[in-house]
């Protein structure tokens, strides 16, 4: 069997595939962050908490309303997105004229509150959430056993990312969005309701986080801290991709998933740090990230 640096090729394929799956989560999460940053100029630290909320809402729908995974996939993003809209209207919208720092601090505080409240209510051991029966089991590929659910995660996230990108790049609404990003005053003058656009954008970005949360619920531990650790990594992804760059965040999300997957084979201890090494290198070479435009 051919090997690369002592690792069998076949095992390497498996690891790359897994990396791609993890990349799917990074891609959806960083896409949401990038959209929010691009338009609102807010670094949304609450994103991790909103991802967690998505998973919890899925659990609640199942246990309080008897609605299963597929319903949750639609309803949880809507519920959490609405929550995001309320946050934006009540709190975040007050900070648009201020430095980045304040938005970051506000959303950081919100994340602490949300996570704390969930911790008080549900503890930290996590809640059970089963893989939907349609997706249980798996495929025996020549190089690995691929659970059906993981395959679904990649497909779902690719579809969502692509759809989002198309909406922003190809539709009229997307054109408004992009225009408002460039020059809000002018767009407002053309009769577009920019504040509403901002609110909806924030809601949509948050809904994406919740969608990722529902996707994660059957495979990761559903607990109040689940978003706290991933958020820092996702930040790094967004920065590497170029803050606010939609396509950049998607591509970087998947790519970094792959790189992380490879690190897990060759230097597993460093797999959570490698992203930060890349971030420093990228920022030193390309100050605005890989796909960002320098101001």
């Amino acid at each position: 069997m051919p090997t690369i640096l002592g690792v069998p090729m076949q095992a390497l394929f498996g690891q790359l595939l897994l990396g791609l799956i993890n990349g799917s989560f990074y891609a959806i999460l960083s896409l949401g962050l990038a959209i929010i940053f691009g338009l609102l100029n807010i670094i949304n630290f609450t994103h991790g908490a909103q991802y967690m909320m998505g998973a919890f809402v899925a659990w609640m729908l199942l246990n309080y309303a008897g609605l299963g995974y597929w319903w949750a996939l639609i309803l949880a993003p809507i519920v959490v997105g609405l929550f995001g809209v309320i946050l934006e209207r009540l709190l975040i919208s007050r900070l648009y004229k201020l430095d980045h720092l304040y938005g970051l601090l506000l959303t950081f505080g919100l994340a602490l509150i949300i996570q704390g409240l969930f911790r008080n209510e549900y503890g930290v051991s996590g809640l059970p959430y089963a893989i939907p029966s349609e997706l249980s089991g798996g495929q025996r590929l020549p190089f690995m056993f691929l659970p059906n659910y993981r395959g679904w995660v990649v497909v779902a996230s690719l579809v969502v990312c692509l759809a989002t990108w198309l909406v922003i790049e190809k539709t009229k609404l997307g054109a408004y969005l992009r225009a408002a990003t460039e020059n809000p005053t002018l767009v407002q003058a053309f009769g577009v309701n920019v504040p509403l656009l901002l609110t909806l954008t924030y809601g949509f970005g948050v809904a994406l986080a919740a969608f990722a949360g529902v996707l994660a619920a059957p495979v990761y531990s559903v607990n109040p801290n689940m978003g706290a650790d991933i958020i820092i990594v996702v930040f790094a992804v967004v920065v590497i991709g170029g803050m606010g760059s939609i396509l950049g965040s998607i591509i970087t999300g998947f790519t970094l998933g792959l790189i992380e997957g490879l690190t897990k084979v060759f230097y597993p201890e460093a797999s959570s740090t490698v992203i930060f090494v890349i971030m420093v290198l990228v920022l030193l070479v390309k100050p605005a990230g890989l796909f960002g435009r320098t101001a």
Partner: protein
Amino acid sequence: MSSAAASTDASPIATALPEGKDAKAFHRLVFVIIAALLVVLPFILYPVFLMKVLCFALFALAFNLLLGYGGLLSFGHAAYFGMASYVSAYAAKVWGLTPELAIIAGTLVAALLGLVFGALAIRRQGIYFSMITLALAQMVFFFSLQAKFTGGEDGIQAVPRGHLFGVISLADDRVLYALVALIFFAGLLLIYRIIHSPFGQVLKAIRDNEPRAISLGYRANQYKLAVFVLSTTLAGLAGATKAIVFQLASLTDVHWSMSGEVVLMTLVGGMGTVFGPILGSFVIIAMENYLAQFGAWVTIIQGVVFVVCVLLFREGILGLVARTLKRPL
């Protein structure tokens, strides 16, 4: 990229009030009050608690030097604080150095680390600067987790307080408090001197308008690097002292949430005020200490403090006081 909602006239992070002639006299009064408090408080409050506050106050002061006067928001200050604390603990425990030498060793390492990281980070601005400092700090965290000498997540425990200059035993909390108070006060004086020196004036000029400062012939990057190193050195001094006080150094001090905590302290106290971070760290540490029995509520309350501060009084407690008094603090 250009940003919409936040228009270009975004208010700077910190706006110090213009200093009139009487500011100096007023500040002298503030220093006297602080010195008096340092003497009186240990008779009222628990000295170990006060020492913790002082260590964090110095840390926040150092952080604020960089943020409030250099205009640079570092998200990785835990790296210098924590690494100094490791080195100081290791020097005191394994090499058997006297506490003052251990603290100096820790501080020097933080300075060196600051020099290397600063040289990389100051080449970028704004949020990118913050992100580089965060990423570098994550690497320090990784190093601390991996390196043998840090003791992994057990940290370095049972660090001896030792004898100052090999003579004065620090086992008594009151003696140690005197040392910590002295270090704190010296640090505070130094920071005050830096801010009000010509060097500090140039820094403020760069913070407010970098291209103009450059066109006036100042080498902005050298100034930024200098203030970065000063800040990390003082943060290191705080961390090194803390290791001796609590007789341990652990991963908590290098974790990114510690970097967040120092931002919180500075925000609560008042960014861009000289004395604000002291008050801020007092408030935050007191909350951590006295709310410990409420468990998860501590983080919720901290979150609420963040939100309230950002929405209602961005200039922090002392910023508010300063505005009311119409005097810079």
